[in-house]
């Protein structure tokens, strides 16, 4: 008996174009205080468009209802836990939203004169310093717009640094357990990718690394803890091997939630890393973005940071564009300032001791879940878990039920699925990260749900294989969507 979920009346909502009716208005502009201008005269008739065909025309009430109804079709952190591994779906503090909306911050134009932007610049400088302290690195750029963007930025910087030493080299090593953005970013930076297999224990294989690091290798990209949620115990030795051959160590900082106040990448040999403000630092996912991906580096890489840099001059902040070794810009303007405000608010709220507690609680919660699920789900690696745990569907697969099916059945129990089929080194992976903001009660409910599903696999596997059953939308036909893509609405 699933008691967390019950059927509920949800309005079947059409697309906005299907509500549209000619002449309906939802806006009102002030009257012009200057003479109107004839568009054909000002722009030339060949430059003036016809009306925007089939563009919506709806009233304000219809706009409100449309989006309100659509919102009822969404699961969100407001509703419950997201046990998604490596996503760090923690609570989004609402005070962050309030401060991000403060008018002088929200309306600041990036080109407004520096004396009138000191507040914004101070916020950025403060965040840079805090992130440098948390990671144990020497300098931070806030320019990258997302994690993958940060990866690319860091690789470009490492390339520039190696080029300055005489040889940019040709390859980047990436573990077979890595997130897909890692090799994709390496490729855009012009590097070939060499995969390095994890050891039997699912961690970096030092022997393999020793063999594969040649003068052609620019860097190793590693995630720590890795995508199994396991701390890379050999990371310092790995750094040693790389540095001895003149190569660099890059860390994907997606799993930083497991390290704050406990260990710092700068102390264990990392030369550059990126952070995900929308993961570790609580900024909201908003259905898929925006995020921010700051990059932190050791001082050897500092000259190559994107420009401009903030510098302090006569008690004021100013931008320094005279950075001849900089890799240039990775985007226009300075970075996702709106996201930075939220991340800094989070850091101020927790402070040093608070951030350490975040990590302790995150690891505690993940281990509690591990213990609760171990009797029912296969644990492919016995190593201690940090902030996330990875199971495999091996036992359930014997009944023809796979991780994707279990994930869909979990929806019927009122939870968002965990991360399915990743990392690739675990066949049929279930990757679970509760984060520190989930209560014990929520964790217990999750464990109960997963336990119940494990029993269902034994007694009624078809129920699981055809889930979800309780949602307004049942399993969608992804095959049809890919075979004959329909990517926009068109009138009948």
């Amino acid at each position, binding site marked *: 008996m699933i008691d967390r979920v019950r059927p509920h009346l949800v309005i079947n909502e059409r697309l906005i174009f299907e509500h549209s009716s000619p002449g309906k208005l939802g806006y009102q502009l002030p009257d012009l205080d200057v003479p109107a201008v004839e568009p054909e005269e000002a722009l030339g008739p060949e430059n003036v468009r016809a009306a925007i065909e089939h563009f919506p025309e709806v009233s304000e009430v219809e706009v409100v209802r449309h989006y309100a109804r659509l919102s009822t079709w969404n699961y969100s952190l407001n509703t419950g836990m997201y046990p998604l591994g490596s996503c760090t779906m923690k609570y989004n503090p609402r005070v962050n939203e309030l401060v991000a909306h403060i008018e002088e911050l929200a309306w600041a134009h990036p080109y407004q004169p520096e004396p009138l932007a000191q507040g914004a610049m101070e916020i950025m400088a403060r965040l840079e310093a805090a992130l440098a302290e948390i990671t144990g690195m020497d300098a931070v750029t806030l320019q990258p717009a997302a994690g993958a963007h940060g990866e690319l930025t860091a690789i470009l910087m490492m390339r520039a640094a190696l080029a300055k030493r005489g040889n940019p080299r040709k390859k980047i090593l990436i573990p077979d357990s890595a997130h897909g953005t890692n090799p994709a970013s390496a490729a855009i930076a012009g590097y070939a990718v060499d995969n390095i297999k994890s050891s039997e224990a699912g961690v970096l294989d030092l022997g393999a690394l020793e063999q594969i690091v040649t003068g052609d290798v620019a860097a190793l990209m590693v995630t720590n803890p890795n995508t199994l949620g396991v701390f890379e115990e050999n990371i310092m030795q790995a750094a040693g091997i790389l540095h001895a051959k003149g190569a660099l160590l890059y860390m994907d900082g997606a799993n930083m939630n497991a390290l704050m106040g406990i260990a710092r990448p700068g102390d264990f040999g990392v030369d550059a890393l990126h952070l995900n403000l929308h993961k570790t630092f609580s900024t909201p996912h908003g*259905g898929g973005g925006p*995020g921010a991906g700051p990059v932190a580096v050791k001082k050897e890489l500092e000259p190559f940071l994107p420009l401009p840099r903030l510098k302090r001059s006569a008690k004021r902040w100013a931008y320094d564009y005279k950075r001849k070794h900089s890799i240039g810009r990775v985007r226009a303007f300075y970075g996702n300032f709106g996201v930075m405000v939220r991340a800094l608010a989070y850091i101020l709220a927790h402070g040093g001791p608070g951030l350490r507690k975040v990590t302790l609680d995150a690891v505690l919660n993940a281990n509690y879940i591990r213990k609760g699920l171990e009797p029912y789900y296969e644990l492919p690696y016995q190593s201690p878990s940090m902030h996330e745990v990875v199971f495999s569907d091996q036992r359930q697969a014997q009944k023809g039920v796979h991780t994707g099916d279990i994930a869909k059945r979990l929806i019927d129990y009122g939870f968002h699925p965990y991360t399915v089929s990743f990392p690739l080194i675990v066949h049929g992976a279930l990757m679970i990260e509760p984060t520190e903001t989930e209560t014990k009660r929520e964790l217990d409910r999750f464990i109960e749900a997963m336990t119940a599903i494990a029993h269902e696999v034994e007694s009624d596997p078809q129920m699981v294989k055809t889930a979800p059953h309780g949602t307004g939308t049942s399993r969608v036909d992804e095959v049809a969507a890919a075979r004959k893509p329909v990517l926009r609405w068109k009138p009948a």
Partner: protein
Amino acid sequence: MLDAIGARSVEDLFAHLPEAVRLKQPLDLPKGISEYEIVRYFRERAAENASGYASFLGAGVYHHFRPVLVDNVVARGEFLTSYTPYQAEISQGTLATIFEFQTMICQLTGMDVANASMYDGSTAMAEAAMMAVRATGKGRVLVARSVHPEYREVLRTYAANQGMPVSEFAYLPEMGALDAEDLERKMDGLTAAVIVQSPNFFGVVDRVREAAEIAHRSGALLIVLFTEAVSLGILQPPAAADIVAGELQSFSIPPTYGGPYIGIIATRERFVRQMPGRLVGQTVDSRGNRAFCLTLATREQHIRREKATSNICTNQALLALMASVFMTVYGKQGLRELAEQNLAKAHYLAGRVKPRFGGRFFNEFVARVEGKLPDQVNKTLLKRKIVGGLPLARFYPELADSILLCATEMSRRADMDRVAEVLA
């Protein structure tokens, strides 16, 4: 909980970490503060920022009214705190809004398909160039100097390590529009794409048709960029473009000191598999109801890894939603009226401050400053609580005596008169 796990203390859970990596002292950060103190901190920073100024800055970031509904809709936790819609059954809200967004971008730009957004206009332009290279199999890119200078810098950073040479072609000093002869001279059979912006960085409606003709004749694609989305309410969409890249910040994204913003890429049907970024498609669920889901994912990094069309993992979903609310509030008629107001305001100002260039313009234009330095003019204006136009010396040495002025529906006549007086 510790009992259940079989640990004595939480610290035990970290005992397996090598001693050498353990942090031996606490983080050097002040202890946590209360909600009230956080708000105070940011209000103090805000007080160190401009407040209550009228602004004539444009240059890629625009001041437009933000309908009240935008923040209202976006504050809903179901939108704000939801994750990427990989699980279609419980994300139809997000997926439907993105599908609508993709549709509206197609309607605005006249293209067949649009993605669910890129980080911003500058990276959208760089990704469009990479897309053209993939689609044509050629390597070179030609970009107009009248394209936003910072966007061109980003393109160079992206191009530098991909064997993608980037060359620039000139603009006509009288018109402020692209120099078709210079483009023709620099064009060759190895060029994958020609990139032009319209309205361009100077606000001038650029010569898209001429550029298209030259590009297509040599087998290159035409990429047309826009940074002022409001212009699409009145300007002819670039029908000759193969790829449209742009910035949607004008559609209710506050200027926010440079980001986050929202870029888009829209293109023709035949290039869809070369497109980077998320795409939402229409399908049915097992009960036969219309439903939406992420599709054509095999272009993306989580599947293709190093062979992906891009490394991008985000789509600015929340900002796409804001832009969607903006577009539905204004609607067909509203976007037109909004654009007409922008046109009127800027042309009023231009009537009093003569534009330097002869080309037609939308809501921005370049003005030469006579008898004084641009910085001095702006200093004077600041005293009147007005932020003046952008001095162009930092980007165009040949225009060091000029500023870029932008007037939108938010600009007031009295402030425009003030600007005209100071410039006289």
